[in-house]
């Protein structure tokens, strides 16, 4: 079956889930796919949970939002709850390892899931700012339909001007991506490698 991937990402305003979605779909677009990405938006976004809906397919995507994701990413306490509605029996739930208790409470034990110690890695090994790039890497790894190069180019398009100013930033991002990718590719199962 052709690739037809549905990913919902949920997090707090500052956690950068929309950037992850944007870079991921950008990369997929340049790799020849038909991605569709839509953020949630509302009058009270400032304080609310931010959700990104991503679909990547070989044919044009139909509806912009979906009921159940193939992958759902939850990056905060509130996001774990908010994302509940997009999680079905087949969904792979990706979450920050620090949220394990929340996940257990909300989803019980049976949920197919992947705990990623992204916060910890970001804080310790890297930098809190690239927390979301680790998640991006995880998604690239888990889905396996993109080359890392596609994603690096997308990162470049997005942050090129910043990288130019501060080359260490580039290196930091690439490392974060790599870390996430390795974590994710261990669980390659959702997408179909092309």
């Amino acid at each position: 079956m052709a690739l037809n991937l549905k990913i919902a990402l949920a997090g707090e305003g500052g956690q950068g889930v929309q950037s992850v979605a944007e870079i991921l779909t950008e990369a997929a677009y340049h790799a020849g796919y038909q991605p569709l990405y839509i953020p949630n938006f509302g009058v009270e976004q400032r304080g609310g949970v931010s959700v990104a809906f991503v679909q990547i397919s070989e044919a044009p995507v139909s509806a912009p939002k979906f009921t159940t994701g193939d992958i759902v990413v939850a990056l905060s306490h509130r996001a774990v709850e908010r994302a509940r509605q997009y999680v079905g029996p087949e969904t792979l739930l990706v979450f920050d390892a620090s949220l394990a208790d929340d996940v257990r409470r909300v989803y019980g034990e049976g949920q197919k899931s992947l705990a990623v110690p992204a916060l910890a890695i970001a804080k310790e090994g890297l930098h809190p700012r690239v927390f979301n790039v680790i998640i991006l890497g995880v998604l690239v790894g888990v889905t396996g339909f993109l080359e890392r190069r596609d994603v690096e180019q997308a990162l470049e398009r997005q942050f090129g001007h910043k990288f130019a100013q501060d080359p260490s930033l580039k290196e930091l991002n690439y490392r974060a991506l790599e870390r996430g990718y390795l974590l994710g590719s261990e669980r390659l199962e959702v997408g179909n490698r092309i």
Partner: protein
Amino acid sequence: MSVAFKPITTENGKGIFHLFPALCKGCGLCIEKCPVDTIGWARQLGAFGTPVVEPGHGKPCIACKKCQLVCPDAAIWIERRNGQGRTDALTAAPQAPGNEK
């Protein structure tokens, strides 16, 4: 008030600095207004998952309450350590009788 907020209370200089992390959004407005630069970032995360503030960074607190005044979220309450009660008006404006209801 049926809702209770947990303070982080720090005695510093002339003031008892109560900070309510569930209210503090980490905007930093108070930091800029402190005349003695005592306020700075803490490790604790607040309402929006960003760091809250704490005293003890610059000179000791003089209990001027400027930080309390400008905080848009009522996340700071400064008590004077000189033993005066806890009921200082927020904005140092005179209390009107109507308020007693």
